[in-house]
């Protein structure tokens, strides 16, 4: 279906292997990129070559620097950090650098801005960092020729090169290369500045966008205005799986401002002169839909999930001796953890503007991947990808795959239908019902302990439903609008049993931090437990799913870190000491100890002595993780107060220790750690997608619950563990990954009640309290 309707150019876009064969030099020196960056084999056709300096940097005659990046600002501060990086490596003032990011007319294809990959991609051995270092060395070389002095007698600072100790003779970057191309390949040996020499990186440089935001000057995608622009609204199927039977255009005939009713297969929308007119027409338009596909019963959803067939099985680690070790264990502990579907729920509903004129399109989109949006929007529109330009404009929040990509297709389709620029902003209900939810998970944990209470084997088996994901090459059907116009989501291919893992990959944090995870006899995990198995069963989902901040990592870590707490309690050990006993990664140990120290951790087993069944109870909990195995490290301690009569949890204090390698911008890192912890708290305590027998029922902020700004904030403290000699890792998804477990563990400490299902609603807390033996 997809391939038949694709243009030859779109097919070429899929044929990345062929592209790479003819561009072999392109990947040399770029093999250290993380999987997400190279997951489709390399940059899109037409993208600026990654190994060319001119793809990354340009210096004008006045010395101003323009840098090009494929990693965008979503509010995480990465544009400030990247600007610092360029200023640092190029030896120019921060203010002289302008970063252009994620515009397919100019910027390299760095896949998605996602998965905590921006630092690993651009701050380590390649890409933007190496481009800036290459440029600096090239400029010094040029200055050497011009000034007739050897390079080792020259010094570059503030965009000026002068002989060491003689600032009177000098040449500026603008004089050397201003307005001209470098025509150079990135030099993997160009010297990088070590953190000890940093003057711009490593400092809490304020974000340049904040003054514009707080004064209402900043242009979000919602504020993009194009001459002659019209406004569209979509009419989504009222129940999951419904298809269009008929559309009665007469139902809106003569409505003020109405321009057109647009129907394409199951995609329905209206275009009007003003947004309010479009909204009213969309509400009034009479569409007859078929019955839906029906939805599984929500109260027995997890039981069905466990038994759902067929499955696609993935084995992340298997030492092949888990059952044997469990049979020899002094005791075996088991627990099952549940995580619901959750929404990204960006505060502003998603918006995009498209201007499709004939065979060309310009699109302003909050997508995380402009190059994939370009090739897939081309498929949706039936255009050649080279005729589509996608320009990133910041949306509201992000947190992964909200409705950003789907609304971009909505705008493109409506613009094409009227031949004029169209802006589409979804309604709140559209946003919360047509995004790709964070995956539900059912997780069984099993561990064997020896007579001393040490873990000798760990088994983790998980079930998770999936449908679609971020649009990648050739897959506009991964989000709802793509399917409405006839594309299919990525196919679900059953596979059971799973093949043996080919190597260590803990991107999903399916493997607990305490597993040694031996591959070819070499321990790759962060822990000491040599016997382990991690098996995941993916099954088809009734709802679209996609990455939600710390995807799968949040869910798996919730289970692992609560279960670790259960094991510690079983062994009557202090939860921090028990973790340390089973860890060998210095970096996980480092953040765990840093958090415990900063929190003045009360060393003793949980739950605390002298529990009472009623009234307020207080406790402390801990959790830690090696995010994705090696992409950021965090330890967290929470202190909670539980009202045992109402079941309400109040988190009073959060202490986060974070290690993301050398710190680019300590204030930016702190902002991410704080925000992640509180967002994770909202997810742990409140957030859950709900549905009835045919449709999603969490459609606004009264039915999809979140912590508002006005709630009693815990005291949040951050300990930044700087590691100047390590590589830069991700940071934005670390604290969120551990907070749910740390809260659950603190509730156990306070009350003896174990929470194994997110969200920790008062009803669930009370049910757990009933099940305890507290007296």
């Amino acid at each position, binding site marked *: 279906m997809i391939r038949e309707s694709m243009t030859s150019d779109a097919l070429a876009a899929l044929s990345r292997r062929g592209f790479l064969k003819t561009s072999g030099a392109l990947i040399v020196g770029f093999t250290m990129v993380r999987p997400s960056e190279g997951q489709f084999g390399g940059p899109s056709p037409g993208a600026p070559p990654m190994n060319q300096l001119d793809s990354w940097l340009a210096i004008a005659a006045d010395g101003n620097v323009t840098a090009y990046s494929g990693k965008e600002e979503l509010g995480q*501060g990465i544009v400030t950090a990247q600007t610092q990086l360029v200023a640092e490596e190029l030896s120019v003032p921060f203010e002289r650098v302008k970063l252009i990011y994620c515009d397919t007319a100019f910027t390299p294809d760095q896949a998605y801005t996602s998965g905590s990959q921006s630092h690993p991609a651009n701050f380590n051995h390649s890409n933007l960092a190496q481009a800036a270092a290459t440029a600096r060395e090239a400029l010094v070389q040029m200055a050497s020729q011009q000034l007739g002095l050897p390079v080792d007698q020259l010094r570059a600072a503030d965009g000026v090169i002068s002989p060491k100790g003689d600032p009177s003779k000098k040449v500026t970057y603008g004089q050397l290369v201003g307005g001209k191309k470098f025509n150079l390949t990135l030099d993997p040996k160009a010297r990088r500045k070590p953190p000890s020499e940093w003057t711009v990186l490593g400092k809490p440089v304020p974000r340049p966008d904040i003054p514009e935001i707080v004064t209402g*000057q*900043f242009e979000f995608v919602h504020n993009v205005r194009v001459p002659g622009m019209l406004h569209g609204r979509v009419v989504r199927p009222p129940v999951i799986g419904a298809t269009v039977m008929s559309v009665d255009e007469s139902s809106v005939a003569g409505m003020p401002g109405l321009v057109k009713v647009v129907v394409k297969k199951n995609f329905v929308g209206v275009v009007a002169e003003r947004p309010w007119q479009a909204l009213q027409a969309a509400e009034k338009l009479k569409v007859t839909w078929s019955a839906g596909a029906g939805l599984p019963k929500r109260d027995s959803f997890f039981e069905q999930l466990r038994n759902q067939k067929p499955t696609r099985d993935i084995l992340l680690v298997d030492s092949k001796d888990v059952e044997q070790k469990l049979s020899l264990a002094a005791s075996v502990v088991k627990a099952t953890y549940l995580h619901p579907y959750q929404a990204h729920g960006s505060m502003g509903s998603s918006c995009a503007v498209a201007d499709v004129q004939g065979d060309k399109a310009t699109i302003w989109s909050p997508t995380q991947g402009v190059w994939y949006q370009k090739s897939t929007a081309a498929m949706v529109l039936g255009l050649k990808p080279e005729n589509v330009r996608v320009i990133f404009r910041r949306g509201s929040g992000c947190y992964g795959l909200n409705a950003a990509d789907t609304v971009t297709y909505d705008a493109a389709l409506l613009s094409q239908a009227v031949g004029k620029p169209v802006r589409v902003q979804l309604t709140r209900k559209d946003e919360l019902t047509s995004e790709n939810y964070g995956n539900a998970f059912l997780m069984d944990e099993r561990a064997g302990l020896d007579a001393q209470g040490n873990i000798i084997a760990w088994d983790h088996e998980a079930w998770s439903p999936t449908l679609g994901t971020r649009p990648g090459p050739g897959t506009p059907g991964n989000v709802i609008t793509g399917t409405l116009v006839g594309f299919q989501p990525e196919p679900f291919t059953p596979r059971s049993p799973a093949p043996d893992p080919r190597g260590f990959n803990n991107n999903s944090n399916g493997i607990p931090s305490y597993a040694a995870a031996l591959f070819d006899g070499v321990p790759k995990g962060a822990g000491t437990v040599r016997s382990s198995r991690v098996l995941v069963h993916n099954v088809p989902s009734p709802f679209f799913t996609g990455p939600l901040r710390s995807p799968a990592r949040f869910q798996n870590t919730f289970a692992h870190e609560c279960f670790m707490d259960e094991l510690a309690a079983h062994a009557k050990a202090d939860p921090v000491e028990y973790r340390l006993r089973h860890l060998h990664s210095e970096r996980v140990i480092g953040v765990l100890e840093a958090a415990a120290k900063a929190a003045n951790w009360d060393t003793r087993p949980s739950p605390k002595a002298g529990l009472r069944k009623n009234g307020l109870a207080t406790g402390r909990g801990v959790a830690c993780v090696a995010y994705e195995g090696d992409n950021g490290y965090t330890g967290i301690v929470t202190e909670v107060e539980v009202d045992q009569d109402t079941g309400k949890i109040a988190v009073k204090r959060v202490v986060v220790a974070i290690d993301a390698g050398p710190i680019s911008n300590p204030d930016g890192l702190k902002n991410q750690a704080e*925000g992640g912890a509180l*967002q994770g708290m909202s997810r742990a305590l409140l957030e859950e997608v709900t549905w009835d027998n045919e449709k999603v029922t969490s459609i606004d902020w009264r039915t999809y619950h979140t912590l508002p700004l*006005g709630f009693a*904030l815990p005291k949040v403290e951050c300990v930044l563990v700087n590691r100047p000699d390590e590589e830069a890792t991700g940071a934005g998804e670390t604290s969120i990954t551990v907070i749910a477990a740390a809260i659950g563990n603190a509730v156990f400490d306070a009350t003896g009640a174990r929470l194994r299902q997110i969200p920790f609603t008062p009803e669930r807390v009370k049910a757990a309290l009933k099940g305890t033996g507290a007296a």
Partner: protein
Amino acid sequence: MITLKVNGRTHTVDVDPATPLLYVLSDDLELRGPKFGCGLGQCGACTVILKGAAVKSCVTPVRAAAGAEITTLEGLGTPEKPHPIQQAFIDEQAAQCGFCLNGVILTAKAFLDKHPKATEEEIQQALSGVLCRCFTHVRMYQAIQKYAKERA
């Protein structure tokens, strides 16, 4: 025809009087401060100050605002000369994506203007109808407290 007084300027607009004020501000007047978040008055993104009170412009018909003084985020200050509460948010770097800041700043300002001696709990109560989904709460409260102290 409806006459609106926005940030000290008078505008005459030709719209359906039932149109929510937000649409007129953001689409007819092309202001970037007030934003559409939910259209239901549940998140605060659309907040404006109308006759001294923070109101949700997405559920306020434009006719209800006719002739009255309306202040949007743009009306407080500029990047060059920010209002003290805007400066406090800059000082505290109290933003992630920034979409919610319109509602946060205007709600806090309108409340503190009326209740300059408000306690932390009262400020919190005043912000119970405002969301920030990036959860920049820690810094936002620091900025609001800073402004409250300077103001007092």
